């Protein structure tokens, strides 16, 4: 299954916009330091570009409504469990590798 670049680009932009909006609206939140980690992760999502990742994205969008560390723990556990299972899926691995290989090609041309 080949990633649909346009869909993924749109997904990546939506997630990044959502995260940025929340972080801007909550400057005093102790979670604000998280922006770098989140950004890295969203860039990763953007790069990996796989349809099934939309489910994770929907889960990620729930992040903005979390208001306690316990909720964040539950959210991260659920998301991680789903993601770990996804990592075992052959099509996801192929998409991951395809992105990595495309990145290599990008570096080569640059």
């Amino acid at each position, binding site marked *: 299954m080949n990633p649909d670049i346009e869909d993924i680009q749109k997904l990546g932009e939506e997630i990044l916009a959502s995260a940025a909006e929340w972080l801007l609206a909550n400057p005093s939140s*102790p*979670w604000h*330091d*998280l922006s770098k*980690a*989140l950004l*890295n*992760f969203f860039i*990763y999502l953007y790069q990996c570009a796989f349809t099934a990742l939309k489910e994770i994205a929907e889960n990620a969008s729930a992040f903005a409504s979390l208001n306690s*560390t316990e909720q*964040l*723990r539950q*959210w*991260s*556990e659920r*998301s*991680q469990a789903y*993601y*770990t299972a996804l*990592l*075992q899926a052959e099509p996801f*691995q*192929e998409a*991951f*590798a395809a992105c*990595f*290989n495309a990145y*290599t090609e990008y*570096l*080569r041309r640059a």
Partner: protein
Amino acid sequence: MFATRHAAIYKQPLFTVRKFDALKNEAPPLFICYSLINRAQILDLTEEVSFIRTLNEKGHTVYLVDWHYVKQSGVTVTYQDYTEHYLKQAVEETLHDSGLDRISVVGICQGGNLATSYALKYPATVSAIAFINTPFDFQTKNDALSNLIKKMQVQDFIDVTGDVPGKMLTQFFIALRPFQFIFKTVSNADGDVKRAFDSWLQQPPDVAGTTLLTYLKLGYLHNDFPQLVTKLDQESLEHPFLNIIAKDDHIVPFAASNALERLIIRHSIESCIVPGGHIGLFLDQKTRREICTRISSWTQKKDSADELRSQQPAGNDC
């Protein structure tokens, strides 16, 4: 930075051999071979969170080969350079300083693979090897890292990048468990340990491309380490093999490490299974103490080349 006072007994552009003195002289010295990926400071983050200091408290003087940043060395190095030249130098300096003929080696993660390759080349200098989170079978069924690497054109990537940026490797490992990373980033209380850990995480060394490529071929692509371990089992070692495995290691899965049990036939082998993840086992106080206690008792045990595998104890939780 290392938290515990120590002496650099040998230094060259690619590595330093650091000596951490025992706090009581009751146990044999140990030589720690750390991975080329990330820095060995994780073993000595603060005075309170220090794997090395815990070993010192149990009476072991610890010699550590601390690999430097490749780019700072100004040379191109291969996997064989590390195992046949630099480790040889590091062990020679350690033996000279300690007055020993052979030393017990503790290999951590990839450091265990490096130690295996080294011990095959220079078996007379090694009395025994303990492994911590070291992969041996790189092609077990649910090894996410292995499954990804086999599909990635790693040779092309290394051809383009040369040395592989450490930050990219870190990001790659985080990409295996991004949500867990997010939660830990947020929930861990600020303090000396968190600051030291963040500093460690943010300053990974680049890895020599040629070295990494050879390692990936030996491991993930060709799965040669089972054969190398079988050869090592034919050498004369003084103690049983000790294999310490974190139950929840997402980088080196349990099955990849536990494969050592079926590969070691001639010598005896002790497995020690502890809770925690790839790095977490060094940070958690209880687990750290359990591991160090097990290593300490391991150095007191003697093995015999004639000992049969059937006489050994089965693998167990620490």
